[in-house]
């Protein structure tokens, strides 16, 4: 067997230097910018959510505007568990992921029969319906006030949450690393390769004996589980959950972050979420009204200079530099 090129979709396994560098940078941030730890934690939560969306859009070709349903469900499950006295955080995250996955397994067989614009419209409608329902169900969701008084037990019974947010940051980072490793395993597997075949040509997949829908439903459930876990981490790190988790903005933000970072490699989420969130954080301090302008200009740049996102632009520039030296 001759060796495959390293950029083949069959060679996604194996740790890349960039991934290690990203992790080192994330750990370093905890020490270099201790005053920004809470921002950092929310960035990491979004990284996990965008990772889940990349499995769906980037690898399976499913464009959904209803991803906030799973994020929101996970967030509320963590909230309800805590208020019911279940304060152990790790099991709560797993249960939130399980709840979101079960919902996806119920919705998936119906929703994923659609493709393209109809799929977009149906998921959009679902997202809006769930948001409005959550708004009405004040008994469950706390309505506009959200759920407060959420208490979380120390992580592993040792690490208290009160120390300047460092516990929360490291805790979410650890989840992020674990989830990234698992998702990477999934997209590197023959299952992941089949998903990319479905993205490229679903009709052809059927004619080589793949029924398509079971693969998509499983990918949807995995994606939802990760989104639900991100939601639970959101609740735990804020000790609060409000209706905002179900908002359409979340679904749209996730899409923008993924496009900014680069679709279909899992690495785009690692770049896109921090880029968007940090730009939003710092430019809205500079001017709370015009920060979207900056995002808009960035998006235009990404669309103009190739569809690989920030990652693609960086790779292009790097290849150009190396080519120029020769």
């Amino acid at each position: 067997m001759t060796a495959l090129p390293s950029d083949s979709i069959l060679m996604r396994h194996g740790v890349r230097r960039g991934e290690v560098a990203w992790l080192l940078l994330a750990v370093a941030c905890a020490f270099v910018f201790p005053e920004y730890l809470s921002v950092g934690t929310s960035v990491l939560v979004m990284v996990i959510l965008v990772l889940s969306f990349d499995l769906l859009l980037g690898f399976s070709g499913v464009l959904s505007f209803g991803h906030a349903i799973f994020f929101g469900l996970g967030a509320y499950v963590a909230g309800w568990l805590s208020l019911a006295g279940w304060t152990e955080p790790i099991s709560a995250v797993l249960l939130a992921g399980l709840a979101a996955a079960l919902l996806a397994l119920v919705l998936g067989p119906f929703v994923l029969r659609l493709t393209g614009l109809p799929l977009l419209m149906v998921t959009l409608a679902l997202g809006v319906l769930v948001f409005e329902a959550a708004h009405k169900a004040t008994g469950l969701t706390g309505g506009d006030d959200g759920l407060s008084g959420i208490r979380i037990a120390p992580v592993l019974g040792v690490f208290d949450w009160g120390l300047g947010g460092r516990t929360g940051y490291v805790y979410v980072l650890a989840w992020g690393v674990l989830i990234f490793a698992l998702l990477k395993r999934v997209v590197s597997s023959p299952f992941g390769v089949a998903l990319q075949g479905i993205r490229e040509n679903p009709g052809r997949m059927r004619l080589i004996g793949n029924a398509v829908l079971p693969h998509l439903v499983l990918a949807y459930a995995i994606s939802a589980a990760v989104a639900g876990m991100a939601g639970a981490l959101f609740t735990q790190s804020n000790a609060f959950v409000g209706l905002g988790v179900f908002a359409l903005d979340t679904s749209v933000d996730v899409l923008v972050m993924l496009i900014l970072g680069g679709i279909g490699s899992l690495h785009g989420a690692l770049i896109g979420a921090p880029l968007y969130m940090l730009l939003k954080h710092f430019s809205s301090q500079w001017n709370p009204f015009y920060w979207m302008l900056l995002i808009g200009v960035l998006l235009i740049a990404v669309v103009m200079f190739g569809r690989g996102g920030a990652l693609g632009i960086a790779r292009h520039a790097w290849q150009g530099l190396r080519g120029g030296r020769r």
Partner: protein
Amino acid sequence: MSTAVPALEAAGLSKHFGALHVTRDVSLSLQHGARMALIGPNGAGKTTLVNLLTGVLKPDAGRLRLFGEDLTQASASRRTRRGLVRTFQISSLYTELTVFENVFIAVSECAGASFDLWRPAGKRIELLERTEALVERLHLHEDMHRKVSEIAYGRQRLVEIAIALAMKPKVLLLDEPAAGIPSNELHLLLGAIESLPAEIAVLMIEHDMEMVRRFATEVAVLVQGELLMSGTPKEVMSHSEVRAVYLGAAGTERFEGKVLAHAA
């Protein structure tokens, strides 16, 4: 070779598109190891017939059996898993993936690996080796790691065949496999078809009489959705009606090898 149960048996297939009756009561039987060519003028409904056989379309009437099993209502993916494999007249590939990846997807699917979420694809040596063997068999190794959208159309046709072979077909339907393959690469296609295991039944839709002559032991003629006749190539070619509706003098000459095949 003729076992009691035919490999593929279609009985009374009919299909309407609105008022257009594109397939009229077609009955066709493919024995184990058959090498049948389906010919007919443009618009005779050849591709529609293949779509009916493979389950892309559902017939309005008629039955389909594969090795005696009734698959009239079976989905395309189920028929494929049962060994009924087709290629496309117009290439239908994963254009943004490489040749190797295209073939790997089919190999992995056929091996039942596509629900393996854990072991990396790049470490599935048995799948990778089978993929490489298929790629080499079709002499595609030069283009192995190029995107399908970047290779010549004739080469794409060969990828199409490689994917079909990856499916370990028992009955293989080739929808105009030679269309778009340049003459200097045609021998690769014929070589691949000739090296198929003898027990596979092959039905080839083909315009080119030279291909038909070299490949087929049986020929069926489809005209306006109806099976006009079938028989050995010689019988069909000497049939006056076939000559009239389809072949003409040029086609007959080509069949008899008087015209240099695929001369540029």
